[in-house]
C-alpha cells in the first residue's frame, strides 16, 4: 500500500489526512513497527486509528489507558472466582481434599484482556492503546515485551507468542514524557490541529450541503480562537458538533450573535466562554470573519 492509496482509503472512511500522516503510516506498515501519535486533545488521533482499521479491514481492539491501569486490565487476569469454584468443586467430589493434579493456572482460567486478545486474534487486528500518557511508567514496562517481540510472558504458563501480529497505534496527549524504552520501539507522528484547507475539507465531508461562505467563516473563527490563550481549544469533533447545530438552525452567516449563542458547544470551561464573549464583542477582533 503506497501513500496515495492510504490517503484515498482514509478519505473514503471520512478521515482527511495530510501527506505526512499518510507517509508515516506507510513507514509503519513497511517496518511493521508500532506507531506513537502525539498531539493536542481532539486533533484526530483516535479517529485516525479507527479510520485506518476500516481501511485495512481489520478488527480494532482498543485499550483505553487511565491512571492506575495495570496488567490485570491490559494483559490478562486470572479468573479467581472460577479457580475458587473449581477447587471447591474438586474438594467436594474428592472427599480426601484437593485431588492430585488440580491445576488452576491453565488457559481455561485466563481472562483475556486487550493486549492478549490482540496477539491471539486469528486474523491480524489493529491494537489501539489510547492515551498511554495517562498510565504510569510501571505500566509501560508491560508493553515493552509485546511491542518488540510480539509475545507475552505469563509466569504460570510461560511465553505466549503471537498468533497474528497486530498493527499497534499508541496515542498520547503529551501530558508526560514517555520512557525512552517505549519510544524507541515505535515510530513517531505529531498530529497537530489541521490547516484551514484540511479542516474545511473535513467539514465538507460531514456536511456536503454546507454553504461555502459559512464554512469559511467557521474555519476563520476557529483559527482565531486557536490563537487565543484558552484552557482548552476547540477540538475537531467540537467544531463538527458546532457546525451540525448551525446547519440544523439554518444559519447561513456567522454573525457575532450566533457565535455568542453557540459558544458552549465549542468551549467547555467557563473562563474560556467568558474570554471569547469578550473577544467577539470586540469589533476589530471579529473583523475579517464575516467577510471571509
Amino acid at each position, binding site marked *: 500500500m503506497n501513500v496515495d492509496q492510504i490517503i484515498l482509503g482514509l478519505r473514503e472512511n471520512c478521515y482527511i489526512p495530510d501527506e505526512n500522516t499518510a507517509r508515516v503510516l506507510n*513507514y509503519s506498515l513497511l*517496518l511493521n513497527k508500532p506507531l506513537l501519535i502525539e498531539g493536542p486533545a481532539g486533533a484526530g488521533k483516535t479517529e485516525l486509528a479507527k479510520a485506518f482499521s476500516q481501511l485495512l479491514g481489520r478488527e480494532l481492539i482498543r485499550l483505553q489507558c487511565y491512571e492506575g491501569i495495570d496488567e490485570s486490565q491490559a494483559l490478562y487476569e486470572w479468573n479467581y472466582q472460577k479457580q475458587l469454584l473449581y477447587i*471447591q468443586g474438586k474438594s467436594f467430589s474428592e472427599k480426601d481434599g484437593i485431588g492430585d493434579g488440580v491445576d488452576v493456572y491453565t488457559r481455561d482460567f485466563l481472562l483475556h484482556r486487550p493486549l492478549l486478545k490482540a496477539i491471539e486474534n486469528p486474523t491480524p487486528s489493529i491494537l489501539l492503546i489510547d492515551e498511554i500518557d495517562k498510565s504510569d511508567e510501571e505500566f509501560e514496562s508491560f508493553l515493552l515485551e509485546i511491542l518488540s517481540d510480539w509475545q507475552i510472558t505469563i509466569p504460570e504458563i510461560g511465553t505466549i507468542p503471537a498468533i497474528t501480529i497486530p498493527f499497534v497505534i499508541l496515542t498520547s496527549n*503529551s501530558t*508526560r514524557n514517555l520512557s525512552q524504552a517505549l519510544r524507541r520501539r515505535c515510530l*513517531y507522528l505529531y498530529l497537530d490541529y489541521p490547516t484551514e484547507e484540511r479542516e474545511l475539507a473535513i467539514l465538507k465531508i460531514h456536511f456536503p450541503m454546507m454553504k461555502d461562505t459559512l464554512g469559511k467563516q467557521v474555519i476563520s473563527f476557529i483559527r482565531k480562537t486557536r490563537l487565543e490563550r484558552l484552557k482548552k481549544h476547540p477540538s475537531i469533533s467540537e467544531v463538527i458538533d458546532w457546525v451540525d447545530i448551525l446547519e440544523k438552525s439554518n444559519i447561513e452567516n456567522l454573525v457575532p450573535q450566533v457565535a455568542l449563542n453557540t459558544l458552549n458547544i465549542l468551549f467547555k470551561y467557563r473562563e474560556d466562554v467568558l474570554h471569547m464573549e469578550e473577544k467577539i464583542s470586540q469589533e476589530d477582533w471579529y473583523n475579517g470573519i464575516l467577510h471571509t
Partner: protein
Amino acid sequence: MEYFILNIGILLRKTGINVTITEIRDCIKVLKSLNVNKLNQFDIYNLINTTMIKTPWGSEYAQWLIELYFGPDMELLSDRTGLLTYGRGTGKSLGLSTGKIMSLEKLLQAVLNDNMQSIFAAVYNSNFDVEPWMEDRQDVLKMLQAQSLWDEVSDSLVQMQDKISNEQYNAAANIMDEWNELLKEEAERQLAKNMSEEHLLMEMEKRNPRRVSFLESNDDLILSMSREIQKLGKKLAVRKGRRRRVSSKGIISLPKTIRKSLKTSGIPVNLVRMKRTPSKPDLWIICDMSNSVSKFIYFMNMFVYSTQQQYSHIRSFVFVDRIMESTEYFNNTDWESALNNLKKIKAYNITGYSHYGNMLMEFAGNYLTCLNKQTTVIILGDARNNGNSLESSEVLKEIKEKAAALYWLNPLTKDQWNEKDCIMRRYEPNCTIAASCSNVEELERFLSLI
C-alpha cells in the same frame, strides 16, 4: 546514504537526543524501500523526525539540521514560514545561472512586485564565500547584504518612499525583512561550513529545547520548552502517604477480606486490596525576582503551577533584598499574570540588588514557625549575595529540620557556584538537595533524585 544517516544519528546523540542503532537502522531501511536514488530533502527531514528524533519540536530541529547540510528547500522554507503560496523555483528557471547576481533593477522590481521566489533564487544561486577567519555573525551578515545588493535595494526603496503608496511600501518592507532572514540563515550556513564539529554541536544544543539554558532561551524556543516543562510537573515532590485505602490492586488486606467473606459463607470470593496513596504535601516556593534570573523564574513557576493539583496548598514568596508573601496574587489569577503583576511591586525590592542573607533572616523571623513536616520548601535563585556579609546559612538548616525537605534550584552551573558573588557552596550543605537547574534536562535529573 547509510553513512550520512549514521552521521546524523551520531550528531543527534551528541546534542542530547537519544538515538539508538535500531532507530538508525529503521531510518535506513525505510529510505531504501522508498527507492530514492537521489536524496530528497523533504523525505529525509520527515524520516529523521519520525524514526530518530520523535518529539513535537523535532521536525523544526531536523529541518534546521538538514538545511545546514544541504541548503534550504523552497518547500521546506514555506512550511516553516507559513507562506504556502510559494512553489519550487530554481535559478535556471528564472533565467539565472549559478554564481550570477541579479541586477539592482531586477531585484528592486522583484521586491516591489512581491516576488519572493526571485529573491530566494537570487540568494541561493549566488556563490557567497565566507573566509574561514570570519566568526562574527553580524560581520558575515553585513558582507552578504553587500554582496547580494540588499543594502542598495534597501536604500533605493527608502528614496522611492514618496513615489509609491504606503501599502506598497509596507509590503516591500516586509519582503526586505524576509530577504534579510534568508541572508541570516545563509550566514549561519556559511559559518557552519567553517566551524568545527564542537562548535556545530554547541549550535545544535542551543536549538534543543531540552538542552538550551533557561537564561539564554529565545522566543522561538519558549513554546517548546514550556511543553517539556509541563510534562515534568507530575513528578515533583509526591510522597507515598502512610494511610491505605481500598483499591483494585495492591496488597491483600486479610482482615477486610475475611470480613467480606462472611457474605459468601466464609469463602473469600472477592479479595479486598489496599493501596498506599500518595500524600499531597504543602509546597512553599521562594523566588528570587532579580533581573538576572527572570527567565529562570518564569519557567520554574510554570513548572510548579502546571501541577497545582499535586499539592494540597501552595504558598509562594518573592524577594530581591526583602521577602514578601505573594500567595494571594497567585490565588485569583493565572500564574503568568500574577508574576507580571508582582514585577510592578517594590515592597520586596528596595535596593535592586539581591540580598539572600537579609531575605533568610526575615523568613526566619516571620514564617519559620509555620513550617511543619508536611511542607516541602523550594528556593529558586542564583545565590548571588552581591558581596553582602550577612549570609544566614544557619536559617537554611532550621528550615531543613522543620520541613519535609528543602530543595534549592540554581540556574547557574555548579562550576559557577563559587564564582564572583555567588555563595551557593555555603548554602548547599544545609539543603536536602541543591541542584543546578539550567535547562529542562537538568530539571528532569533533579526530579529523578527526589
